[in-house]
C-alpha cells in the first residue's frame, strides 16, 4: 500500500510539473506567432482610419507592449491563485467561459467515450473470437476504413444524411434557434447532441477494437485457456471466466489513455455542427489570437488528459499485480 501511495504521489508531482511545462510551451508558441491580433480582429481598413492613440489603447489591450516574460509570470501568478485572466474576445473571465463550454462538451465527450469504449470492446472481442472468419474481416475492415476517414468529412456526411436529406435531426447548435433558455427541454438538448456524439463514437471505436482483438487472441492462445479446454469447460464459460476478465481491464486503461483523441475529435465535430463547446471556443480563440482563452483551454484539456493517464497508470497497478510488484521492487 505504501508503495502504491508513493507511486501515485510521484506521478501526481510529475503531472503538476508537466502542466506547468504545457502552459509555458503553449505560451511560447502563441508568443512566437507572427500573426498580429489587431490585424486579425480589427482589420487593416479600420486600423487605417484610427488615430495613433486609439491604436495604442488597442495594442495595450491585446498585450502587445508588455514583454513576454513579464506577461507569462503575471499569468502564472494569477493562474496559481485560480484566476486565468479575461478572454480578449469575449471580455469575460476565461474560467467562466471554459466552465460553460466544458458543460456542453462533457455531454458529448462522456457519452462518446462510454459508447465507443463499450462498442469497441464488444467488436474487438467478437473479432478476436472469430479470428480469420468473416466477422473478424468485417470488423477489421471497418476499423481500417474509419481510421482512414477524416473526422470532419464523416461529420459532414452524417449532417448531410440525417439533417439535410432525412431531416430528422437538427443541423447544428446545442438548442433550437431563437428559443429562450427556459423553454429548452432535455429532449431538445439530446437531439442536438446526437450527431456530434455519434461522430465521436464512430471514430473512437477503431483503436479500442483492434487492441481488444489482439488481447483476445493472446488469451485464446494462452496456456490457461488450453488447460480450461482440456478440463472440458464450455466455450461460453471460457469466454466469461478467462476471456472477458483478462481483456476488460487493459481495455479500460486504454480508454482512459484515449482522452486526448476524444478531445481532438470534439474540436472538429463541434466546429462542423457549430456546437457551442470547448473545442469550438478553442478554434475561435486560435483564429482570433485570444491568448488567455487559448492558454486556459490548453491547460485545462491537458489536465484532463494527464488526469486520464494518471487513472490509467493507477488502474494498471490495481489490475496487474505483476506491475505493482515491479514498481515496489524499484
Amino acid at each position, binding site marked *: 500500500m505504501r508503495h502504491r501511495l508513493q507511486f501515485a504521489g510521484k506521478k501526481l508531482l510529475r503531472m503538476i510539473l508537466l502542466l506547468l511545462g504545457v502552459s509555458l510551451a503553449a505560451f511560447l508558441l502563441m508568443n512566437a506567432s507572427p500573426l498580429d491580433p489587431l490585424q486579425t480582429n480589427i482589420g487593416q481598413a479600420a486600423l487605417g482610419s484610427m488615430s495613433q492613440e486609439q491604436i495604442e489603447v488597442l495594442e495595450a489591450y491585446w498585450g502587445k507592449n508588455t514583454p513576454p516574460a513579464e506577461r507569462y509570470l503575471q499569468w502564472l501568478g494569477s493562474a496559481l491563485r485560480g484566476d486565468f485572466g479575461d478572454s480578449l474576445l469575449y471580455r469575460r473571465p476565461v474560467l467562466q467561459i471554459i466552465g460553460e463550454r466544458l458543460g456542453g462538451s462533457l455531454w458529448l465527450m462522456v457519452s462518446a467515450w462510454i459508447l465507443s469504449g463499450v462498442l469497441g470492446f464488444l467488436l474487438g472481442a467478437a473479432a478476436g473470437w472469430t479470428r480469420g472468419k468473416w466477422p473478424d474481416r468485417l470488423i477489421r475492415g471497418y476499423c481500417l476504413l474509419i481510421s482512414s476517414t477524416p473526422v470532419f*468529412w464523416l461529420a459532414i456526411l452524417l449532417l448531410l444524411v440525417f439533417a439535410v436529406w432525412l431531416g430528422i435531426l437538427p443541423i447544428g447548435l446545442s438548442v433550437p434557434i431563437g428559443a429562450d433558455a427556459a423553454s429548452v427541454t432535455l429532449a431538445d438538448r439530446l437531439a442536438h447532441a446526437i450527431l456530434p456524439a455519434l461522430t465521436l463514437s464512430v471514430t473512437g471505436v477503431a483503436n479500442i477494437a483492434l487492441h481488444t482483438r489482439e488481447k483476445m487472441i493472446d488469451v485464446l492462445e494462452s496456456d490457461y485457456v488450453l488447460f480450461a479446454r482440456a478440463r472440458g469447460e464450455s466455450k461460453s464459460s471460457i469466454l466469461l471466466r478467462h476471456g472477458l476478465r483478462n481483456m476488460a481491464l487493459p481495455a479500460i486503461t486504454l480508454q482512459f489513455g484515449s482522452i486526448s483523441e476524444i478531445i481532438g475529435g470534439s474540436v472538429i465535430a463541434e466546429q462542423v455542427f457549430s456546437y457551442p463547446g470547448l473545442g469550438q471556443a478553442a478554434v475561435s480563440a486560435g483564429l482570433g489570437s485570444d491568448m488567455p482563452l487559448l492558454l486556459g483551454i490548453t491547460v485545462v484539456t491537458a489536465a484532463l488528459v494527464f488526469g486520464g493517464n494518471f487513472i490509467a497508470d493507477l488502474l494498471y497497478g490495481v489490475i496487474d499485480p505483476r506491475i505493482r510488484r515491479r514498481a515496489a521492487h524499484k
Partner: protein
Amino acid sequence: MIEKNWNSRKSAILFVTVAVLLLAAVMVAGIVFSTKAMQTDFSRKNQSPSFSFLFGTDWMGRDMLSRTLAGLSLSIRIGLLTAVVSTALALLLGTAAATLGSKADAAVSWCIDLCMGIPHILLVILISLAFGKGFIGVVAGVSLSHWPSLARIVRSEVLQLRQAPYVMTAEKLGASRFSIFRRHILPHLFPQFLTGLILQFPHAILHEASVTFLGFGLPPEQPAIGVILSESMRYLTTGKWWLAVLPGLSLAAVTLLFSVTGNCLRRLLDPASAQE
C-alpha cells in the same frame, strides 16, 4: 505451403507497386490540373456530377474533379514531407534518449510526455500559429507533433539492441560508440524507420486536412481538401452534396491506400509480425 507463402508475398509486392504508381499518378495529375482547378466559369456553375464534369462544379463554375485532384496532390506532398521530417525526428530523439545517458533520456521523455499531454489537434494548431499558419505552419505543426509515439518505440528498440550479444561483444572489443551505432544498431532500425514512415502518412494527411479545415492550415485560395470541404459547408443545406461527398471520399480512399500499402510493406519487411 512454401508455394503459397511465395504467392502471397508476390501479390503483396504487386499491390504495393500498383498503389505507389497510383498515388504518384494522382500527385502528378494534381500538379498538371492545378491551373484548371482555379479556373472560374460562371456559365457552368453549380452543376451536379455528369459525364463532362465527373465531380460536378461549384458556385464559381470551377471543375470539382480538377480541384479534388489538385487537393489530393497537395495532401500527398505535404504528407510525404511531414512524415519524413517527423520520422527522422523520432529516430534522432529516440536513439539520443537511449544512448546519450540518463539526462538526455529524462529530457526526451519529458518532451514526449509534454507533447502527448496536449490534445493532438490543439498542439498542431498552436505550432501552426507559432509559424504564422499557411503552408509552413501546417507542415511544422504536423511534423513537430507526430514524433513522440514513434520516438518511444525507437528508444525501447535501441535499449534492447544495446543488450544484444553482438553489441556487447563489439563494446568489449573496443569499438567506438559511433561505429557500434552505425554498424550494429542503425541497420536494425532501418525497417522500423521505413514502416514508421509509411504508417505516418495517413495520420499526417488526415491531420493536415483537419487543421486546414479548421482554418489554421493552408490559405483559402489553395485548392486543399480541407479548404474545399470547409467551403462546401455553406452549400450543404441547398442540396449541393457533391461538393462535400466526392472530395472527402477521394481523400479517404487515398488515405486508405496509404494505410493498406503501409501494412503490406510492414509484413514484407518484418515477417515476424506477419503471422496472419
